[in-house]
């Protein structure tokens, strides 16, 4: 095989062929695994009420700091992942916590991707001063330690769900703008764009019908990696006490609780962290698969 060609962001210039594309995806084992993990997390979030063995918020001091696998003599229930310092069931809290992770990361990524895609398209297509301004904004965003900026903004605005999504969306769009602009720059000079123009197509039509379909795939790949990053960052905010506030269980604020009891009850911090890692890894695997799929120079051989 000739898999040594560099991975570029050049989008495929062909119409997708659903069947062979799907077959290629299905052969990418890690990506399929990633997709399954993501589906499992989505199902967990949707059906938390049915899946959680106990309430995620009811405190039972009698059952505080019980280790994983502890059997509650009174109810006969096994506490598979143990309980926290207030006697809440960790397993149930993790199941409910998946909701916040998804509810923050997915809208944040979708919003920032749309903003970045639009600005990147315009900057790449028209160039000129707006391109210069945009690229400086991208540099600026890269210069700021993102987490500090997000922390300060969330602290100022107040740590509500809306504000967290807003801050994430408004501070992460430049990466999409940069990627889109790069892809548009290489497309602008392609024959099919010039052909469309010579047939009398206007800018709007060229952008919408000819350029956009070709930049969607790199943006989609980037977005999938960003979902993983947002899940981790949301939990970091929670860990620092600036995430969605208790009593709503989030993986981040569970970890913050766990830190205080790290010497006596490792499980309080260990399991939500594992949940974050597995989810983020699943999304990253999926992103890897999508990249191999969309990048025509990197056909995955499945070996």
């Amino acid at each position, binding site marked *: 095989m000739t898999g040594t060609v*560099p991975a570029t962001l050049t989008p495929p210039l062909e119409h997708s062929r659903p069947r062979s594309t799907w077959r290629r995806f299905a052969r990418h084992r890690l990506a399929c695994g990633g997709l399954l993990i993501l589906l499992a997390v989505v199902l967990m979030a949707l059906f938390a009420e049915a899946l959680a063995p106990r309430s995620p918020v009811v405190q039972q001091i009698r059952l505080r700091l019980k280790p994983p696998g502890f059997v509650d003599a009174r109810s006969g229930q096994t506490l598979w992942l143990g309980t926290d310092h207030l006697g809440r069931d960790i397993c149930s809290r993790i199941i409910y916590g998946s909701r916040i992770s998804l509810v923050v990361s997915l809208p944040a990524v979708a919003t920032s991707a749309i903003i970045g895609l639009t600005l990147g398209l315009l900057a790449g297509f028209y160039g000129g001063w707006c391109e210069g301004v945009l690229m400086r904004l991208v540099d*600026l965003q890269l*210069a700021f*330690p993102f987490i500090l900026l997000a922390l300060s903004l969330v602290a*100022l605005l107040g740590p509500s769900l809306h504000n967290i999504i807003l801050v994430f969306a408004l501070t992460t769009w430049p990466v999409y703008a940069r990627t889109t602009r790069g892809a548009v720059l290489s497309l602008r000079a392609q024959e099919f764009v010039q052909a469309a123009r010579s047939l009398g197509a206007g800018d709007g039509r060229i952008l919408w019908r000819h350029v956009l379909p070709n930049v969607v795939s790199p943006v989609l790949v980037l977005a999938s990696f960003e979902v993983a990053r947002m899940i981790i960052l949301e939990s970091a905010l929670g860990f620092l006490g600036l995430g969605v506030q208790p009593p709503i269980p989030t993986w981040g604020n569970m970890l913050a609780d766990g830190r205080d009891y790290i010497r006596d009850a490792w499980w309080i911090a260990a399991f939500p962290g594992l949940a974050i890692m597995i989810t983020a890894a699943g999304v990253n*695997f999926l992103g890897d698969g999508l990249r191999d799929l969309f990048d025509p120079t990197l056909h995955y051989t499945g070996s």
Partner: protein
Amino acid sequence: MTMEYLVLRSLQSLLLIFLATLVVFLLLHITPGDPATLILGDQATPEQVADLRRSMGLDRPLHEQYGRFLANAMCGDFGLSIRAQRPALMYVMERLPATLQLSAGAFAFAVLTGIPIGILSAVKRLSLWDHGAMFVALLGQSMPVYWLGLMLIVIFAVHLRWLPASGMGQLQHLILPAFTLGMFLIGLIIRLMRSSMLDVLSRDYIRTAHAKGLSRHIVLVRHALKNACIPVVTVLGLQMGTLLGGAVITETVFAWPGMGMVTVTAIHQRDYPVVQSAVLVLAVLVVLINWCVDMVYHYLDPRIR
């Protein structure tokens, strides 16, 4: 040509720093509500708020406030820390060495292990080693840094008692935090180094070198490595902001007395002068590092000269 590039690039960096001051200034002013009330809290009397507004210059028009902020910032004056009643910048700067020590330790660890692993992965492409390294790399990038830190504390400090869980001082204090923060970069370095090396190894000049009868070792080290490092250097430069951001969280896990810990505490205490100076100091640091990286890049890669 090179001089022109140097000047242009430096001007660009200055512009970035200028924009950064604007963001840091606006941070306090775009938010709903009055900064004075935010700082004083809900219990403050209207007189106290009015007093603070006047002393902070909040009763002046916004552009005038920014002008004053910029002028003061250029002299290193961000006002007094509200809690510590000391110059905010000084308060932040005295913690900078600790943060730099942690970041440098993490960086060194990540580069010294990530680059060889990446090279080996490329050389033994699609072997068990390669798949293993890729898996570890992806896992490293999927792990919340602070969680890794907590788990390392559980294992090495609580159970094995080999290493201290927190604080700063001797070398053993640095091991866990540097490893934790380094894991953050290692995945990226392994993947980048691998793909860059694969790219270089497929080039004609490598084939020529092999054809000349040079040993595998010499071809790898002398011909491939230097070229393969170029993209890695650029991306590492761009990751400095992320590294320093990661340091902020790592510091809070290990009670490492650096800028991150001060800043997080200041954010919680609404000590804005400290937050503003910390964010700006880190941003300026990243801009300077990127400037240096570009200069190194310029030197390494004669094609862009």
